[in-house]
């Protein structure tokens, strides 16, 4: 029988999560976002190949604030999901011996790499 007096805390909102948990949940969120971002990327591909005129039009799309925001958000999701995904691939190859400490380090490295790349993307869009 289950001891009903046993204290159980499954309220994830009150549990202090390690960095690996945040990297993991953001990987999911960014993956879902990237699925929808692909519609934007396909639209840009479509416009860029439809004609010389539409290629020019879509080249100038970043002068519109809404387009800036949508493309920025799409690229941020794609960049983060890619970085966190490559972390998984590296871990799957056996690096880090699957210890919690190496997972924590690689999680921080992923955050660092993603922040740098997102800064580059942000600079490219704003400038």
């Amino acid at each position, binding site marked *: 029988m289950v001891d009903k007096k046993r204290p159980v805390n499954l309220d994830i909102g009150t549990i202090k999560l390690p960095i690996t948990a945040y990297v993991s949940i953001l990987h999911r969120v960014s993956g879902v976002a990237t*699925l929808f971002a*692909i519609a934007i990327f*396909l639209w840009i*591909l479509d416009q*860029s*190949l439809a004609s010389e005129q539409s290629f*020019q039009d879509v080249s100038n799309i970043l002068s519109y604030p809404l387009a800036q925001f949508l493309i920025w958000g799409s690229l941020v999701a794609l960049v983060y999901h890619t970085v966190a995904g490559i972390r*998984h*691939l590296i871990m799957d190859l056996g690096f880090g011996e699957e210890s919690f400490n190496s997972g924590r380090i690689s999680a921080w490295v992923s955050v660092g790499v993603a922040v740098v790349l997102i800064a580059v993307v942000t600079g490219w869009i704003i400038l």
Partner: protein
Amino acid sequence: MMSFLARFTHTGPSDWIIQRITSVIMAAYLFFLVGYLLANPSLTYGQWAELNSLLAMRLFSLVTISAVAYHAWIGMWCVLTDYITVRLIGPKADGLRKSLQAGLGFIILSYMVWTIKILWGL
């Protein structure tokens, strides 16, 4: 290999390996595109259209969008079966989850059809 890849049943090991194979394909495509755009900062329509008219490039794009489709299908299944559950949101969860998965499947297939239309001008 093909019958292995063609299975849509969710067995953990096959989903696991498909998720990784597709991610390598997508990463290769992304790195190629970023590299190409960095190497051609003043890209013209002519260059861009020529690249995307190459059969090899069209096939690369087609393989990549197929990888996206498979990867997203598995990924969304994982997310939906974790959060849209009877335990978390009640008895309507199963129907809702299946509807969402079907809707996402439609979106994913639309991406594939759209890509083929863009690249083969159908």
